[in-house]
């Protein structure tokens, strides 16, 4: 396939998902080590590698360390990850030797539900645990990624249904119920530093650790972001307007996605 030329990409036409993925990629610095969840986080991490962070080290829970896929994998264990990795280790090893001691700079996660303290639910929604309305996939690697990476970035589409006052089930801990909880629980990493959505960026208030709107994508209002949040979202005094995707970013993202099988949209 011939690669897209940045000059052929109009920077005026991009989707909210593309903006979200580009913003998430920008949050990663060159040379970082990144423990990558599948889906939106994987797209963003690979975009960062393809643009400003060629030295970003991608680590997947399948045990592939330093994977360099040229197209987006559908799963965390596609052959292209093993074939391009610096090392392939067993699953006990990736969690015990690599994640647990706090060697990884950033954990990149998504969520089905997230609350104002950045706690993530990927287990059950509605009803109770024994009789849930929706049974989600469960924990996977996320609880220990959220606990042990030096910091965490969450990439998730924003809606009043998924951004809730309290998650129905705490699968992965953000700041628990507020300041002091991570220390009390013995969680070694610093916790979630950013939630990047299809509307903008939320960051924890330094005093309360409650996630606050600090950045908006072009054309999105703070009122719209508040409307798509299930808690009373605090807005920073002067939220930054984040630059839209550059032609180079859009071309790189679309090149990565061209070889990928597109799954159906999930319905809960």
């Amino acid at each position, binding site marked *: 396939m011939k690669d897209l030329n940045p000059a052929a990409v109009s920077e005026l036409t991009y989707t909210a998902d593309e903006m979200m993925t580009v913003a998430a990629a920008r949050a990663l610095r060159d040379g970082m080590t990144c423990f990558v969840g*599948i*889906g939106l986080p994987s797209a963003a991490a690979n975009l960062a590698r393809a643009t400003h962070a060629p030295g970003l080290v991608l680590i997947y*829970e*399948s*045990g*592939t360390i330093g994977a360099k896929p040229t197209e987006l*994998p*559908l*799963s*965390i*264990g*596609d*052959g292209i*990850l*093993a*074939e391009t990795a610096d090392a*392939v280790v*067993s*699953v*006990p090893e990736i*969690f*015990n030797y690599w*994640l*647990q001691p706090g060697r990884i700079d950033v954990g990149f996660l998504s969520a089905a539900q997230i609350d104002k303290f950045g706690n993530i639910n990927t*287990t059950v929604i509605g009803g109770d*645990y024994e009789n*849930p*309305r*929706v*049974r*989600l*996939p*469960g*924990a*996977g*690697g*996320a*609880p*220990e990624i959220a*606990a*042990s990476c030096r910091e965490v970035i969450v990439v998730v589409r924003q809606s009043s249904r998924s951004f809730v006052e309290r998650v129905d*089930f*705490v*699968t*992965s*801990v953000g700041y*628990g119920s507020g300041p002091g*909880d991570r220390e009390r*629980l*013995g*969680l*070694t990493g610093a916790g979630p530093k950013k939630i990047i959505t299809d509307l903008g960026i939320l960051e924890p208030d330094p005093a309360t650790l409650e996630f606050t709107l600090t950045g908006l994508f072009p054309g999105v209002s703070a009122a719209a972001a508040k409307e798509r949040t299930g808690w009373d979202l605090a807005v920073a005094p002067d939220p930054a307007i984040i630059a839209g995707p550059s032609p180079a970013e859009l071309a790189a993202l679309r090149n990565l996605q061209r070889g990928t*099988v*597109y*799954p*159906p949209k*999930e319905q809960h």
Partner: protein
Amino acid sequence: MAEIVSLAEAVERAIHDGDAVAMEGFTHLIPFAAGHELIRQRRRDLTLIRMTPDLIYDQLIGAGCARKLIFSWGGNPGVGSLHRFRDAVEHAWPVTLEIEEHSHAGMANRYVAGASGLPFAVLRGYNGTGLESLTGDHESAPTIKPITCPFTGETLTAVAAIRPDVAVIHAQRADLSGNVQLWGIAGVQKEAVLAAQRSVVTVEEIVDHLDPRPGAVVLPSWTVSYVAHVPGGAHPSYALGYSVRDNDYYVAWDGIGRDRDAFRRWLDEHVYAVPAGHP
């Protein structure tokens, strides 16, 4: 010493109704053909153990083979839900499914404890999560408990060992003596086989002698019960060096798994009507 037998015979002899069965393979080398043979032989009341149930357990659960599932991530990777798993948990269809859930780190360490002949493993994990308070407290003893380090006094987490009756894996190769060799993403297959009482290994290829392969996992013949020659036995998963992951199949499964009638038709056409070892 491993016996080299047909897939049907391996499943017949190694796996019985009510057994705890761990069919492992982390995205790569998933033993799908052996799973289909379990469905064909109509095993019932199995406790299915697997970090990522994936389509293989979606199929076994939907076919009514399972009584209990022990797992850490039950989705269709990159696609969405496992609808047969969800239907069992949300609506008890086709039968009630008891679940015991963990994180990946917890499950991996439970296999390590089993393989090590220890009653439990220790990790930093689960603190503050909902899993900590509920896992395994339904009928047996809880499988996650706090433990104090005898050297530093730090509170850590203990997870109970997994000791399956049977482990089932797929590998690239075995030799005529039943020594098994696998490479690429190796998941927890070595730990699952060494933790289990019995094991079944399906392979892409049986060769006269295994040539040494640095970095490969080798399971000597005396750690394996049965080896069966099943080329393509991991499809729609894959065997590095022999096949690629059939991502289109994983996407197409969403439509089959979502609908009970479509799933029943799939079972009839692709499992019950097919002879053993022809995935």
